[in-house]
Structures are given as C-alpha cells and as structure tokens.
C-alpha cells in the first residue's frame, strides 16, 4: 500500500511541467485550438508535437521495440494528466487503438501502428455504435464479408467522434453473417481514406456556440460513417476472425478508466473551488457561505474517490491483473459524480450558470453552462451506467442473470 508517486515519477512530472511552461506558448495554444476546430495543423503546433515526441512522451508506456519508452502505467498517467490539464491534449498512450494492437496485433501490425501513432501520423477513431444499438454492442449489424484475402464492408456506424480527423477507424463488424450476439464479431483496422467510406457530421448541442476547453463532452461534432462496399485486405483484421468481442472488451475496460476519464469528471470541482476562493464579483461572498462550503467539501471528497478509483485501476493494471469489476465501477462513480457536481454548481452560481461561451458576463467562458449540456453524456457513452451496474453486480458480485 503506497499512496504516493515515486521520486522518479515526480521527477517526470516536474520535467513535463517545465516543458509545458516553456513550450506551450499562447501562440502554440492558439494553433492547437485551431486544429481542434478543424483548421489543420499549424507549424508551431507541429514543432510542439515534435518536441514532445523527441522526449518520448507520446506513447510513453509502449514497448521500446516499437518506439515507446517502456515506462509503467503511472508514467503514462502522469503524461496524460499534465498534457490534458495544460491543453486538453490526449497524449501518453491510452485510448482506443494502440493498446488493443499491442494486446492482440500481429508483429507486423505492431511495427506499423505503434511507431506511426507515436509520430502522430496514425490516429484512430472508434467504430462501435450503430444507429439501432448504442450500448448493446452485441447487436452489431455492420458486416464484413470475406472474399479470399479481402473483406468487403457494408453498414453504418454512429457517434464516431473524430472520424473527420482520424487516419484509421477501429471498426467492429460482423464477419459471420449467421452469428448472433457476441459471436461472429471481428475488429478491422480500416484506413479512413479507403474508397466507399462516407462521413456525415452530427453536430452536438455543444456546437453552437462551441464549448470552451475543459468542458465535459464538449465535442461540437461527432459523425455517422457509412460503408458502401468498402474493400480492405484481410491483414486489416486485428486478432482472430470472430474474436472481436474479446479484443474489444479489454480496450473498452481501459477506455473507462485513466487520466482523461478522471479529469473530465473532476476538473469542475477544482474550477468551482478556485473560482469561489477568488471571492470576486459576481461570486463574492460565497466563500463564506456555510452551505456552499459544505457542498464544495462534499464534491471535493467525491472527486477524491474518482482519483483513488483511478489509482486503483492503474495499480491493478500495473500489477498485470485483470479488472474484475473495477473499471465498470469507476465508470459509474466518476460520470455520476460529474453530473451531481455540475448540477450542484449550477445552483451555487445561479443564473450565471446558464451563460454559454461567448455570452457577455459568462463565467470561465461558460464552462459551467456547457458542462450542464455535456455531463450526462458521460453516463451514457462507452457503456451506460446501467450496463456498468449490471457488470459490477454480475461479474463483481456473481449475482445471477434474470430468467423468465
């Protein structure tokens, strides 16, 4: 039992912080924001990423033989945390694609995707949900038919966030047309520039006006992706054919934990405390209000539980253990904390909490209002809290399945 980072880890954190203080200039930040808004990568941003790359922080926990640093899960967490805090950059090695490639890929796939991702030449979007099945992935219909050494893909995906910028899609398809539920699914890694792929934007309630940085589920856009006789070589297959469910499960578990998931759930706790403690108009006086103080202490404590559950997941992973229920449990606690916090904060701030980004008099660029628009999404995406509770009860506690 050890609740502190090691000296090495603290040193890494200090290095990153110093780097960010030095290199993340307002100009770089502006180009990063422009890139996120779809205006392509500016030269300063490119240089910034090159510098990060050279320090080995892109994919810090990935194996050295594929260009990573072979560092542990805590080093990865530190990189992720500092860059996400500083500029909402998702850096360090989590996410959808590469961890699954490392777990299930062929040697060739590892040699291709891992270094490419580290150089940020390759990026993945996630092709899971379909219009008729959001949470229930076992109902997937998008099919890939094998014809010798190629697959032909037909179908549709939805909520494919980042499809417009990704080089590849991490795609779950049904390869056995006669299969049902989890069986007969496979994962394909498909280049987005393959002919027959069409992307249609879905604008979210965060698009007009665009949500400010640090908003939970502040993405202005997600997508539908259509596959019309898309032909890819069979080498795109990740893991065995028909083994897609198992390949995806581990990825999903990792997706439900880690720095990003933690931070989007708790940054508002820090923001509201730091706002209230400034004690300036229009929130002056709240600092001394015992009701507000009590509520902030409650939220803070819940936020600490988010942090500690994240550390528990990292500890488990670092030991090489598998989650029994911990990932699902965290994916209940953190999003619901986010919702509770957001709604409680709105009652503390009163009418100011309804002001969106760009409105006169908006507090912190309207982040608290945009959180109201985004917080509940976190209880739905990547496995709803209802499904997560089922899993905690069934897998964690061994409770029986309902029969009729």
């Amino acid at each position, binding site marked *: 039992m050890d609740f502190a980072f090691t000296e090495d880890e603290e040193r890494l954190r200090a290095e990153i912080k110093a780097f960010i203080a030095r290199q993340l200039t307002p100009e770089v930040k502006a180009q990063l924001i422009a890139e996120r808004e779809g205006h392509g990568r500016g030269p300063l941003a490119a240089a910034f990423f090159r510098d990060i790359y050279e320090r080995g922080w892109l994919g810090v926990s990935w194996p050295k033989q594929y260009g990573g640093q072979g560092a542990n899960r805590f080093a990865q967490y530190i990189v992720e945390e500092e860059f996400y805090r500083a500029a909402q950059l998702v850096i360090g090695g989590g996410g959808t694609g590469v961890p699954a490639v490392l777990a299930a890929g062929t040697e060739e796939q590892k040699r291709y995707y891992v270094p490419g991702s580290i150089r940020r030449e390759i990026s993945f979007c996630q092709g899971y949900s379909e219009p008729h099945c*959001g*949470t229930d992935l076992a109902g997937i219909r998008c099919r890939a038919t094998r014809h010798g050494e190629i697959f032909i893909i037909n179908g549709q995906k939805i909520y494919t966030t980042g499809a417009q910028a990704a080089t590849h899609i991490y795609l779950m398809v049904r390869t056995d047309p006669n299969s049902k539920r989890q069986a007969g699914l496979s994962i394909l890694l498909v280049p987005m520039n393959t002919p027959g792929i069409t992307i249609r934007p879905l604008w979210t309630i965060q698009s007009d006006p665009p949500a400010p940085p640090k908003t939970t589920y502040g993405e202005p856009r997600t997508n539908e992706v259509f596959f019309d006789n898309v032909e890819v070589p069979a080498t795109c297959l990740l893991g065995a054919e028909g083994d897609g469910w198992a390949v995806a499960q581990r990825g999903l578990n990792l997706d439900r934990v880690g720095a990003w998931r933690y931070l989007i759930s708790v940054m508002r706790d820090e923001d509201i405390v730091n706002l209230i403690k400034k004690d300036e108009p229009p929130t002056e006086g709240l600092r001394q209000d015992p009701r507000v103080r009590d509520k902030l202490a409650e939220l803070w404590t819940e936020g600490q539980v988010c942090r500690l559950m994240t550390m528990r997941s990292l500890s488990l992973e670092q030991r090489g253990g598998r989650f029994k229920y911990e990932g699902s449990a965290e994916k209940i606690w953190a999003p619901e904390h986010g919702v509770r916090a957001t709604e409680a904060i709105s*009652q503390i701030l009163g009418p100011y909490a*309804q*002001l*969106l980004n760009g409105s006169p008099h908006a507090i912190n660029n309207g982040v608290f209002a945009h959180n109201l628009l985004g917080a509940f999404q976190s209880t739905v995406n990547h496995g709803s809290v209802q499904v997560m509770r089922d899993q905690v009860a069934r897998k964690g506690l061994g409770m029986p399945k309902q029969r009729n």
Partner: protein
Amino acid sequence: MDVLSDEQEALIQRTAGEFLAAECPPSLVRAVEKSEEKYSKQLWTKFADLGWLGLCLPEEQGGQGLPLTYLGLVLEEVGRYLAPLPVHSTMVPALVLASFGTPVQMKLLERVACGELLLSFGIVERSGRWSTDAIALSGRRDGNDIVLNGSKYFVDNFRIAQKCMVAVRMFGADGGDEGPAAVLVDTASAGIHCEPLLTTAKDGESVVRFDDVRVPQSNRVGAPRQGRAAVDALMDYASVFLVSQMQGAARRAMEFAVEYVKHREAFGQPIGAFQAIQHMAADMVNAVDGTQLLGREAVWRLSRGLPARVEVAQAKSFANEKCLMVCRSAQQMHGGIGFIAEFDLNLWYRRVTSWTLRGGTTYEHRARIASALLDTPGEVRLGRALELPAAAPD
C-alpha cells in the same frame, strides 16, 4: 379539499394544450431560437386572439376574471410545448398591475389582454441574487420624475417589450432610502442600454443598464407604502409561474423518454422493459407530480389572496432539482441521440436547465422556508400554513 383539476380547469388546460400542439411544433421553437426577437409574433397574435392572455385579468379591463390557477394551467402547457411566447414575462408584471396598479396603470391591462402590449420585468442585478435586499438599482425622486440608475441582469424579453416593470430601491430627493418599489419604464426611454445574453435556453434574456433614465412618478406601481408588497408579488409570480412552465416541460420530456424506451430495442427487447429504466421512469413521475402539487398549491393560495411566499419557495426549490433530474434522465434514456443538436429532446433539456436558475435558486428559496420554520414563535405542523417573520430573507 380536492387537489385535482375540476372539469372546467381540465377543459381549459386541454384546450390550451391542443392549440399549442397544433400551432407550436418543435420546428417553430427551433426557428425562433435563431431569430433576433426570440419569440413568434404570429403565434402570439393567435394566442392573444383566443383570449388566453385575458384569462385571469379583471373583467373591467377586458379579461375573464378567472382565478390565477387557470393561468398556472395555461403556463403548464406553454412549458409543455416550449411555446416561444412572452406569456410569462408579460403576465407576471400584468398581474402585479392588476393587484396594485393605479387606475391609469390598470388601463394598460386592456392592451395586455388583447396581446398589443408586451411587458418584461427586471429584478436580479449583478450579484445574480434573487432577493429584495440585493436590489440596488436606484430610483431617486426628482421633482415629478424618478431617475433610475443601475443595471438589471437576466431580464427576459426586454428587447421586444414596450414596457418593463423594474424593481428599484427608492430614494427621496434628500437621498433618504425609501425601500423597494416597482416602477414601469418604457423600454425605449433615453439612457437605456440593452446587452443580449446567450443562455442554454437560447431565449431573450438581456442585461439592461439604466443611466439617468427618467420616468414620471406616476409610473410607480401602487401606493408608496405598497412598494415592498408589489415587489414581493412580482417575485412570487415570477417564481411560481416558472414552476408551472418547468413542470409542463419536464412532464413532456418524461413522456418523450417513456415513449422512446417502449420502442427502442437493445439486448433483445425494448429497453423500457428493463427494471433500471422503469425505476428511473417511476422516479420521474414522482418528481413531476410532486412539482405539480407544490406548484398548484402555491398558485391556488395566491389566487385566494392567501399568504404564499413559503409555498412559492417550496415549489421553486423542489422544481429546480427535480425538473432538471427529469430532463436529464430523459436525455439518459435516449442514449447518445439526445446529445445531437437536431434531435428535439434537448430543446426541453436546455430550457429547463435555464429555468432552474431563474426566479431564485434552491438555496435562496430554502432560506425563506427555513426562516418561516425557525424564526417564528410556536410549534410547526405540516398542513398548517407557515408565515414568514418580518425580517425573513427574500
């Protein structure tokens, strides 16, 4: 005692609902969000022509003189269909005029009843606080005029209204504090600056600055000694009719969600067959029904001229938390789709988030309830109305 609607009440509510169901589709709500005026003039005219605005105004001013409870029912429907109409912002000050106005001011109600005169009102200032104590905008008496200086924040529909009822702190020519009062101001007066806000509801709130705005003393609402009572009424009407709207809107969001989960299939059946979804829905029912009962009791008391500050505070503090929960649960039950801008459900969610933050926060209303519970002599008993002490927070 019969807390259910009687036949006439049910009829009027149903009629209003049927009218709005036909005339106010979500596409209209959405179009108005993008408009400059933030209301539908066409719908307003139809609404007024059907006599809905005059429902609870005095018969002498062309109204139908029905109890306030009827307006509450109509506003439930306005909320239900998110009708982009300045009913709330117009009727709240109109009712204050109906109770406190001078004969000349009462005359204005004729134009309200027929939809000609749009009103707005300003209470909250920079602090954001829903409290008479926080009213600092000064109305200094100067000869036959009152000179207004200060700002009102979060004023709904100021830009389309011809007149605004402004809660001010009056000062004599000698600078003596004369307490709160309500003053009617022409929105086109010199010295007024209006800055539109962008809210989650995407409706017509603004910040309005008053720089040496002059209005005649006769624009003061009611007799000098009634200033505080008029401001109290303005705040109570504003809060309680927001509850009517919120409840109507939350109920609609719940109905959408229940309908959706009855048909949306996952894991081999309609997700509405899952106990977790059913139990979420059951809690939504109690939340909207509880809001309805508290809200209607408060409006009913106002309609009888009974003290109702505590009941208004109960209704609004409860509605703030519960109606938001209902709309959030409705979004959750819809999964990812509710997050997509073009899907209608979020119109309801976005409005209710805003409405929970207007007309007093939960903290503010509970402070009033606590004062009635604890700063008064004698024992309390549920079912026996509480009175506020003179020094209660508001």
